[in-house]
């Protein structure tokens, strides 16, 4: 076995996942007429949605404050780095991958950008209702498009992490922290070489 994710990284993932699912569920009730009618009580759902958002943001802050920030910084550095191998990989060719493959990097970059945009657009949705000077025409649409794109991203993410036979071992990494070394060698050879070479 080889260690892939520390407690901070796993906490970050699951805090984000929990918050996202809570906001997605309540958000879809507010957004889709079918669900609005099914659940009704719009005001309650709205309050739960807002409460989830605040709880999610605070929990993320806690992870940063209490967690291993150095490790998170290193993760981000790796994720930001789309090197020549990654670019080859993204073009569908075989190329050795680091601890994150290029797809995971893109997923992380997009997820992070979406999180920022959800916060910004959500904040202005909240503020605009209370102070109409901050009511912008596109705010709701940005929030909705983010929701739709996130659902697409989530479906792909779940498929690869839970269903697809060759990749779903990764789920163990993000829950328990370690993965089989032979699996890691196959999917993340550059990382294993570096880890074992040191």
């Amino acid at each position, binding site marked *: 076995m080889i260690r892939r994710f520390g407690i901070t990284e796993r906490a970050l993932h699951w805090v984000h996942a929990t918050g996202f699912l809570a906001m997605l569920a309540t958000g879809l009730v507010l957004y889709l007429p079918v669900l609005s009618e099914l659940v009704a009580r719009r005001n309650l759902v709205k309050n739960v949605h807002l409460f989830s958002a605040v709880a999610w943001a605070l929990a993320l802050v806690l992870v940063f404050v209490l967690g291993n920030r150095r490790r998170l910084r290193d993760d981000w550095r790796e994720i*930001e780095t789309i090197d020549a191998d990654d670019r080859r990989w993204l073009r569908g060719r075989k190329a050795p991958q680091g601890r994150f493959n290029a797809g995971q990097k893109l997923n992380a970059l997009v997820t992070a950008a979406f999180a920022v945009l959800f916060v910004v657009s959500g904040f202005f949705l909240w503020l605009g209702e209370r102070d109409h000077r901050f009511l912008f*025409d596109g705010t709701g649409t940005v929030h909705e498009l983010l929701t739709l794109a996130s659902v697409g991203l989530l479906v792909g993410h779940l498929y690869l992490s839970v269903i697809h036979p060759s990749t779903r071992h990764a789920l163990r990494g993000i829950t328990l922290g370690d993965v089989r070394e032979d699996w890691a060698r196959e999917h993340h050879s550059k990382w294993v070489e570096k880890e074992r070479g040191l």
Partner: protein
Amino acid sequence: MPDGGDRAVAAHERLAELVEGRARCEPRLDAERDAGRVRESLARLARAQERARDHGGGGVGKRGEPFAELERLSSARGGQLAQLVGIAGGRLGVAAEVDQHAGDRSRDPRSKAHVRKSGYNVGVDDRRLGRAAFLGLVGVGVAGLFYGRDATKVVGGVVPSPLKEIVPTSGWRIYSIGRELPRLDPNAFRLTIAGAVERPVTYSLADLRALPQVTQVSDFHCVTGWSVYDVTWKGVRFRQLLAEAGVRPQAKALRFVSAEVPYDDTLTLEQAYAADALLALELDGKPLSVPHGFPARVVMPRMYGYKSVKWVSRIEVEPHLDTVGYWEQRGYDEDAWVGASN
């Protein structure tokens, strides 16, 4: 002729510029020495290139001895240059150029040997790529907040067709507070006007349609941020609607009670008599659909949409201004003028 030597020299020149620029900015660091190294390497490259030109005319594929020297020189510098690029403060593009002519694979920053030695290949441009994707996405999203008119219709354009059944794709968003939208029978429908009036009146839908009708084009603004522009409404002005019942002198406000219990909201009598307020029966040339409040709804274009009560089944004429509507009890403005701030 795009010859490897030219490219190498160009890359070196640019690198020299960058490193020297940095040396001027931050003389405390070892940048001065780095700049010297790059200058030296540049001079050697230039000499080698000159020799190569004299010898073979620079033709591609004619790789004479001076060419071998040029290659050796430029590749020997590969690893060192990759380091210097990092030092140079990360201007875009330079590492890629250096990369192109670093011939020796073991010194190529992309090669496995290099990875084994130094961990990941973290060329500056590579990092910028991911960061640019992240920041670009955030930038586009933030700019999207200020996308102008008809932003709500954008969603309809990008949603795949199987989803069009459940995702709202017109400019409208339908918000309801009840378990299901009131589906009122047009034959059984009655609208009662009561309260501070001379005589309470009850209208059937046919009665309402028999009253003098007006058509107007106005915009609809929701307090949650979306708007629908140029909506055509047809219906009855409130002055006409209340004429038969006769409003008493002490009357101050109208309370519109929706068939969607417990939704209600109010307009002062003055607001209801505004030139563009009406009880609408038609939207864009057709009878209101159920989601839009069939058979009758309030339209008050200059106030946010929660004032425009749908499925109106009763109008209470009130001698006071105390009644607080459904959303106002939950924090919204009583006077919901579009554009005014709380």
